[in-house]
């Protein structure tokens, strides 16, 4: 664990301020979250050189560490997870690009597994996924966001619906479309 007790206290304070509507607190919280998720990702990558990252597990680990500080309301949980998914995407792809560019790390791609895409044990290049999602944002921003939440945050269909305040049926439909497109592009030779 990276966090010290004093950091826990800090995070708790931020959480409380956020729950009272303080947007600055949210920014700071996301900064901490970024650092946290990034650290967990780097730790995992260093532990096992070729292991691929499981974004869902990273987000949940980050979430659990915060949830232990204070019981979040269900609503807060959904919002938290959706924000964490965005932070997770940024942190993981930043690290993936850095490694790809770095000679020291041999330029090995960082892969993602357990992503809700395809088979559970199938892995995808993190940079490819990020690039494709950026492209998808132009065609179908909603589908892109849903896919991003599902892939990088491990949100369930219901959680996405709750976070976006749209119906489960809508999420299901956009997810099916976005996922099919992404799957097609990722498996293209």
């Amino acid at each position, binding site marked *: 664990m990276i966090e010290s007790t004093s950091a826990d206290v800090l995070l708790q304070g931020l959480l409380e301020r956020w729950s009272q509507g303080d947007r600055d607190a949210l920014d700071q919280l996301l900064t901490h979250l970024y650092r946290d998720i990034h650290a967990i990702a780097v730790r995992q990558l260093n532990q096992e050189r070729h292991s691929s990252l*499981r974004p*869902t*597990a990273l987000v*949940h680990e980050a979430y659990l560490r915060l949830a232990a500080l204070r019981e979040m309301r*269900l609503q807060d949980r959904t919002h938290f997870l959706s924000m964490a998914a965005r932070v997770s995407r940024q942190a993981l792809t930043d690290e993936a690009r850095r490694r790809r560019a770095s000679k020291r790390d041999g330029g090995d791609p960082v892969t993602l597994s*357990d*992503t*809700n895409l395809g*088979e*559970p044990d199938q892995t995808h290049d993190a940079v*490819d996924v990020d*690039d*494709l999602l950026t*492209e*998808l944002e*132009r*065609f*179908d921003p909603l589908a892109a966001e849903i896919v991003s939440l599902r892939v990088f945050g*491990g949100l*369930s*269909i*219901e959680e996405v619906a709750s976070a976006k305040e749209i119906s489960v049926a809508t999420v*299901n439909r956009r*997810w*099916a*479309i976005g*996922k*099919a*497109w992404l*799957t*097609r*592009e990722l498996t*293209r*030779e």
Partner: protein
Amino acid sequence: MSGAVDDSDRRATTYRLFAEALDLLGDARERFLEEHCRADAQLRAEVVALLEIAEAGRGGVETGALAGAAPQREPSQTGKIFGRFRLREQIGEGGMGVVYLAERTDGVQQLVAVKLVSTLLATAAQHRLEREVRILARLEHASVARLIDAGVEGGRAWVAIEYVRGERIDAYCAARNLSTPGIVRLLVQLSAAVSAAHALLVVHSDIKPANVLVTAEGLPKLIDFGIATALRESEPARAATVEIGRLFSPNYAALEQLSGGAITVATDVFGLGALAYRLLTGAPIYREANSPVAYLMAVNQRDVEAPSRAALAGGRGESAARALRGDLDAILCKALEREPNRRYASAADFQADLQRYLDGRPVTARAPSIRYRAVKFARRNALAVGLAGLLSVSVVAGGVTVWLQSRSTALARDMAARRGEFLESMLKSANPREGKRDITVAELLDAAARGLDEKLGAEPLVEASLLGLIADTNTELGRYPEALATSDRQLALLRREGASARDLALAMADRGDLLSRANRYDEAETTLKAAIADLRRQSGEKPALVQTLSSLAGVYANTNRNPAAETALAEAIVLDQQRTGFPQQQLAVVLGNEGRYAESATFARAALDLERKYLPADNPTVLITQSNYAMTLANLHRPAEALPLQREVADATARVLGPDHPDTLLMQAHVAEDLFDLGRFAEAATIEHHAAESLDRAVGENHRYARGVWIGYAMAACNTDDAPAGLAAAKRVADIRARILPEIDWQTATIHGVIGLCLAHLKRFAEAEPMLLQASAILEASRGANFYQTQLAYTTLRDMYAAMGRSADAAVFGGKIEKVK
């Protein structure tokens, strides 16, 4: 991304066409593609490829990352002919292959579902398919999709099954917002279907929402016996999952499926339980397990969360949770036990319990466990101890019941009559029905004590007797200072009037009881010993000596000196020369407190036989003895025998004393205890709640009876939906008790133990733990480790720690639990 070289407009177009075409089916889609792709074969191929991916992936669009078996992609078989059937469109995908909607080629109007074994699995799966065909051919049930035909075509096996036009059961329930009983009724039907399959030695082993459709008529249908395994009676078949790999559905798979254990009917019980859990709570079991590995770990490591709590956590609201709390919690948790042999033994048993729930009958999932039995001892004995006091005198608003004295002498009968008249006149002078509703028994007693001189001044012995009666009643009400003051007056009067040693001794025996009840055991002992010494000097006062010795035995019992109590009672029994049965009964109580239930039953039975010889069966003394005997039977785990005896007592008491008489209410509470022992908690709680409320009205909440019955109610209620009310009742009793006797003693600890029990049932472990630890420590120190209340506290602690997953702590208290003697 070597392939991503198309210009971005073209890619956007492809995406848009794909998204639009996805909403179109059959010819409409064909026309759409014709129109928009025309000569651009590459564009068309791209869109079709995306459509195929989307449609193949649709089955897997359930929540979370818990994908099931790998879908096998293969070229479309639409239009091809298998046996008598032409495939129309793909409608699904299972672990074994794809499923098509098909029509008959011979002109008969019939739609069927044709399942094609995927080429990849062909070798392993074809054998299983053959088995499936044999199984399904024998299986006919309204709630199972019927097998129509099967065959091999071009090297691949196919099966035609009844095409079920319906909605997935989860969507069906959600769309209709089905009530809890409505969902349970569907589950009952499904369980019957699974049970019919089990009768053919067939296990489904993949029960989940995707495999259950509900028709427009509301009939649930189990489809896809994809990995059904024929059971041999002698040797349970091995899991298909071992050979095939990941052919299970994580949210519904049992531990033995994941670990490669034997697949038995218990596997389907788990599947039915998991399906029920999903439908009733809206959440999968282990909802936080978001990957197959996390699920595997969860099933290995912990029990499912109670459905009522899962429903609450899932935002279903308090009323939905309330409907689940109690019976359904118990039924689902039993079906979802991780160890197969702890689940229901069959789907039929699961079905039967669901039906009992629907019928409002007690469910077997909540049959008494060791904990309930231990709880039972505690309560039963608490009241049995009370009965010993009741044997001297019992008074209530509206009448007087005289027990022992009434049959000892003519004088006593006369006195009893005079006392009855007096009290009746007092009651009439303060008739609650005539406007003075606020008058309490306590006020009445105070008025009576004041009015004695003027009404009965000329009859000091009757006055003394009445003072004794008032003292007893005050004692029962927990008004110890008043009781002691009245007792002082009584003794002074008796001495002044030169009463006989016998009368003095009896009064001192009562005072001894009173002091004992007020926890002033030392004074009680001194008083009773003095009375006994006086009586021993008199000859021919055996009955009085018998009663006083019995009272002293009560003090010994209450101060954890059971051997001394037994010695005193042994003397009393000898002296009694088998005339009253009273000391035998006292001895039965003392032995019961020690957990020596068989001996206890022997003495209770002896007392009953004795009394029946010279008293009519509906005499209150005989009834109480019969009730005590029934309690000893219940202590011996024979509640079914005890129940009719207690019912008889309760009915007779109601007849003799009236339905609102406190003794009647107490006897009803005893009936409730037997129901409790039989696992009929809701009935028990209802009766005890009524009895306790009535007692509050009749004798006031301070009365020992009322406190005892409220505690009984708390114990029963904590096993039902009303656990919070049970907790409130127990807390109230604790408050009352603290007001009457502020010191902390074993009785307080007992009440705290019950509060802890209620908290544990409510899963408020953090509050329950200190309560139970303190209670067990006090009980252990004051009454010893083997005392039944101490044992109760240990049992509750053990079960609570087990529930919390703190197995080391559970083992500590498990080790302290004595085998029932």
